[in-house]
C-alpha cells in the first residue's frame, strides 16, 4: 500500500482531476505489476512518471490508455468512473497515447496523418462518395502544427521524410487536434538527439499551456526534472513518491527510483 497521497497541483485547474486512478491493481497470475496505485492528473499539468524497468510504468499507462484492463481499482475521467475496453474508448473520453513512432504512416503526407480516421470530405454528393477536402485538411493541419511551434517543411511532405522531433510533433499535434484532454507520452524522446529532445520538451510545455494534462513517461531524468510540475515514482508496482522538482534535488528522484530512499521513506515522506 502506498501511503503517499498525491497532492493537488499548484498549477492547472483546482478541483476535479481530469484523470484519476484509485487503488489500481494489476496482477499477472501471481506476479503483481501494480499494487494499489493512486494518481491524479490535472488540466495543464505535466506529470512525470518515472521508475526502473519493470516498475510498472507501462502497465499503468496501458490501463489508463485502455489497452489493458485492471485487475481491480477504478479509472475516473472528470470524476466519473469509466471502463475502457479498447484504446478507442479511451480516445473518446479524451485520452490519447502518443507512442514514439508507432501511430504514424510514413508513406502518408503530414495532413493525411493528421486527419487519418476522421477525414474531411467535401460537401454534397461527392462528399458522400468520400471525396476528400484536401484544401481544408491542409489548412487545418498548418494551423494545428503552428500551435506546436515546430517547423515542418510543408503539410504535403511525407512523414517518412521528417526528423524524429518533427514526427513527434505531428503525433502530438494530432492528439491535440483530436480534442484530447489528456496526452500520455511513452518515452517521447528515447530515440532522439539532444536538439530534438529539447524541441519535444518545448512541445510538451506548449501542449500543457493549452490546458491539456500531460503524463510523461521517461527515462530522461534531467528532462523530467526540468519540465514536469510533479514527478511520480513507481517502485515495484507502487507509487512511492509524489515529488515537486522545485522542492527536491534530482538525486532525490534517483534515490526513490532505485529504492534506496524507500527505506528512508518517513524522513522524506513529508517532502512529497
Amino acid at each position, binding site marked *: 500500500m502506498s501511503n503517499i497521497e498525491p497532492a493537488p497541483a499548484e498549477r492547472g485547474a483546482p478541483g476535479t482531476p481530469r484523470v484519476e486512478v484509485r487503488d489500481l491493481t494489476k496482477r499477472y497470475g501471481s506476479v503483481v505489476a501494480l499494487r494499489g496505485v493512486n494518481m491524479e492528473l490535472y488540466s495543464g499539468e505535466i506529470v512525470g512518471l518515472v521508475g526502473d524497468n519493470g516498475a510498472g510504468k507501462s502497465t499503468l499507462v496501458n490501463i489508463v490508455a485502455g489497452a489493458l484492463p485492471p485487475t481491480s481499482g477504478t479509472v475516473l475521467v472528470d470524476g466519473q468512473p469509466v471502463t475502457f475496453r479498447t*484504446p*478507442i474508448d479511451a*480516445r473518446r473520453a479524451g485520452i490519447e497515447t502518443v507512442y514514439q513512432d*508507432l*501511430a*504514424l*504512416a*510514413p*508513406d*502518408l503526407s503530414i495532413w*493525411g496523418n493528421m486527419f*487519418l*480516421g*476522421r*477525414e474531411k*470530405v467535401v460537401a454534397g454528393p461527392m462528399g458522400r*462518395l*468520400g*471525396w*476528400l477536402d*484536401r484544401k481544408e485538411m491542409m489548412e487545418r493541419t498548418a494551423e494545428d502544427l503552428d500551435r506546436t511551434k*515546430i*517547423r515542418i*517543411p510543408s503539410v504535403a511532405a*511525407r512523414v*517518412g*521524410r521528417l*526528423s524524429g*522531433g*518533427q514526427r513527434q510533433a505531428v503525433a502530438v499535434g494530432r492528439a491535440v487536434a483530436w480534442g484530447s484532454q489528456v496526452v500520455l507520452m511513452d518515452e517521447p524522446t528515447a530515440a532522439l538527439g539532444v*536538439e*530534438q529532445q*529539447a*524541441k519535444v*520538451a*518545448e512541445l510538451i510545455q506548449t501542449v500543457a499551456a493549452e490546458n491539456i494534462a500531460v503524463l510523461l513517461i521517461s527515462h530522461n531524468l534531467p528532462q523530467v526534472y*526540468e*519540465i514536469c510540475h510533479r514527478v511520480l515514482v513507481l517502485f515495484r508496482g507502487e507509487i512511492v513518491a509524489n515529488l515537486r522538482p522545485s522542492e527536491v534535488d534530482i538525486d532525490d528522484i534517483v534515490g526513490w527510483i532505485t529504492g534506496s530512499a524507500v527505506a528512508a521513506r518517513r524522513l522524506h515522506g513529508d517532502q512529497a
Partner: protein
Amino acid sequence: MSVSDEPREAAPADATQGDSIPAFQRFMERIGDLWTLGVLILLIVIFGIAAPSLFTKAAWLSTSSYAVEYLILAVGQTFVIITAGIDLSDGAALGFSGMAGALVMEHLINSHASDTLTVILGIATMLVAGLLVGLGNGLLITRLKLPPFIVTLGTLTAVTGFTNLLNHGTEITTLPNFITNLGTASILSGWLPIPVLIALAVAVIFGFVLARTRFGLRTYAIGSNEVGARRAGIRVDRHLVMVYAISGLLAGLAGLLVTANFSSATPLAGNNDELYAIASVAIGGASIFGGRGTIFGTFIGTAILSVLTTGLVLTNVAPFWQQVAIGFVVIAAVAIDRVRTRAGTD
C-alpha cells in the same frame, strides 16, 4: 524554461536532414513516375525505328486490346499491393467469371430466354463470380489471419479447378450477339475499341478513388502502418476485404471483356495474367511492402509491357525470348524502385 530559444535556432539543422540522402537517390525519387514514362517513350521510339509498322492502326489496336485485361487486373492489383498484400488469384478469377457467365448465357440461350435477360444475367454472373472470389480472399486473409500470398495461391489453384469443372475444361462459344459485338465495337472511326474505353474508364475512376478519396487514403495508411491505421480507428479488416473484393470484381469485368474479345469463354482465359498484372504494378513504382503506388504508374507499367510485347513481335523476336525480355524488365524496374524507396525512408 531555458530550452525555449535553443530549439528555434536548431530548426535549420532539422530542415537540412534531408540533404544527407545521396544526391543520386534524391534525383531518382524526384523523377518519380516520370522515369517509367521516359522508358515507355524510349521503347516506342526504339521499336518505331526498328519496325515502323508500330505506328499503324493495326499495331495500335492489337497492342491496346492486348492491354485491356492486364490494365483492369493491374488496377485491382494496385490497391491490393498498396495494402502490402498480393492477389495471385485475379487471373484465375478472370477465367472463372468468364466461364461462369458464359455457362449461364449458354443455358439461357438454349432455353430461349430473351436476349436482354441473357445479357444482363450473364454479365451479372461474371461480376458476381469475380466479386465472390475476391470476398473469399479477403475473408480468409482477415478472419484466419493468413498471409495474402498463401491464401491467393490457394484460391488461384482451387478457382482454376472450379473453372474447369464448370464445362469439363472445354470452351463455350454459344453467346448472345451483344457480347460478341462488345468485343468488336469501337468509336473514333475504329481507333478506340469499346473494351479499351472501358479499361481506360476503370483506370481513371479507380485512379481518382485511390488518390482523392477517403477509401484511397486509408488504403495507403493500412499498407504504410497497419497498427497505426487501427489505432486511428480505421476498421482495417473490413477495408482489406473491400480491397480484395475490388480486385475480384475487376477480374470479373476483365472476364467479360476477354470473353467478348474472343467471342468465346475458355477455361484458359486469364492463365498467368496475375503475373503480368503484378509486373505492371511493380514497374509502375508500387512497393510490394505497401504504402506506395499509383494508378498512373500502373497504367505506364501496363503500357510498357504491352509495347514491349508488340515491339518484340514486330521485330520478329522469337516468343520465348519475349518472355525472357519481359522478365528482365520487371526485375530491372523493381531494382530501380528499391533505390527510390531507400531514398524515401531514411
